[in-house]
């Protein structure tokens, strides 16, 4: 019924500002869930922005320790970036497969996403372990503190994402493509894509800008 009221004005007033729509009832649970999760993701991004601000302020405060240009390895960062980007793509493929209820492509997409996420985590963990072994741990200088907290916080999010991913595969295996499982899958896809957006900021600001001599 709201359709008949809106369809004539759709072009003149696409955002329905000027007309009173008959109440179409509450939004479907899928929209409410995903919107709530979207608001959470935005607040998560706000939290990351504080870490970014701290890094921007402290990136020069090396206290006699190493600067970014001395410890960052562009090759590793490039591999990590490509891993996350491809995993975002395969996650998108898995969510399409979930929407059309195709188990094989869902499991394949999720498995590839999981492997790419794990490769990312292994490279990052080895980078951190290597820095700590050389005496450049988070307590060495304010620059390294902000570096470890920003990149480490993103790494923690990716770890949580991998756990969530495995949970989703198990839920689809045990419960099938039920409506509630599909809602969770949708939130997971949002989460994973948002992590990739944050990583774009990380590799640009931390590694490329901060690694400049």
């Amino acid at each position, binding site marked *: 019924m709201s359709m008949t009221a809106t369809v004539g004005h759709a072009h003149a007033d*696409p955002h329905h500002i000027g007309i009173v729509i008959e109440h179409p009832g509450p939004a479907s649970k899928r929209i409410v869930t995903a919107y709530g999760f*979207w608001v959470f993701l935005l607040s998560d991004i706000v939290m990351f922005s504080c870490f970014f601000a701290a890094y921007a302020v402290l990136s020069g405060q090396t206290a006699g320790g190493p600067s970014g240009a001395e410890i960052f390895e562009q090759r590793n960062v490039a591999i990590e970036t490509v891993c996350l*980007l491809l995993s975002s793509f395969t996650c998108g493929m898995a969510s399409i497969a979930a929407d059309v209820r195709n188990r094989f492509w869902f499991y394949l997409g999720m498995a590839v996403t999981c492997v790419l996420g794990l490769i990312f985590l292994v490279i990052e963990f080895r980078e951190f372990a290597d820095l700590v072994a050389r005496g450049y741990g988070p307590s060495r200088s304010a620059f390294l503190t902000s570096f470890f907290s920003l990149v480490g916080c993103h790494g923690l999010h990716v770890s949580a994402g991998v756990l969530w991913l495995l949970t989703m595969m198990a839920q689809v295996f045990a419960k099938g493509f039920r409506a509630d499982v599909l809602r969770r899958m*949708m939130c997971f896809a949002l989460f994973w*894509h948002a992590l990739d*957006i944050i990583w*774009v900021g990380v590799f640009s600001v931390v590694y*490329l800008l901060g690694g400049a001599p």
Partner: protein
Amino acid sequence: MSDQTHIPAGHDLAPGEEEQHSVGERILGYVVGLVLALLLTATSFFIAGTDLVWQPSIPVALIVLAIAQMGVHLVFFLHITTGPDNTNNVLALAFGLLVVFLVVGGTVWIMSHLNGNMPPMDQIMRMRT
């Protein structure tokens, strides 16, 4: 329960949800996004290590490329568009961006001014004694 998964036309879209497309079109959208994102990433890494361009322009170029890539991710992966069914999602995003710019921009601005206006640390120490 109101566990309906189909969305009536003319209604709002959840974030991350596309308008009804065929599977082929949806996959094509992700492929386009992936190619654009890879191109922008490759450009970022190339710009950061090159001597071909004027050096002071590199930080600006990197920031512009990063924002462009975030836009590509938002449109092609998260499906945030300017369509009428996406108004709520875009408004929430706009508010989030406002807070992000206030936090980052404000911090960098204030701290750089503080740095510029403060005497060096050894002078402060001498003033105290």
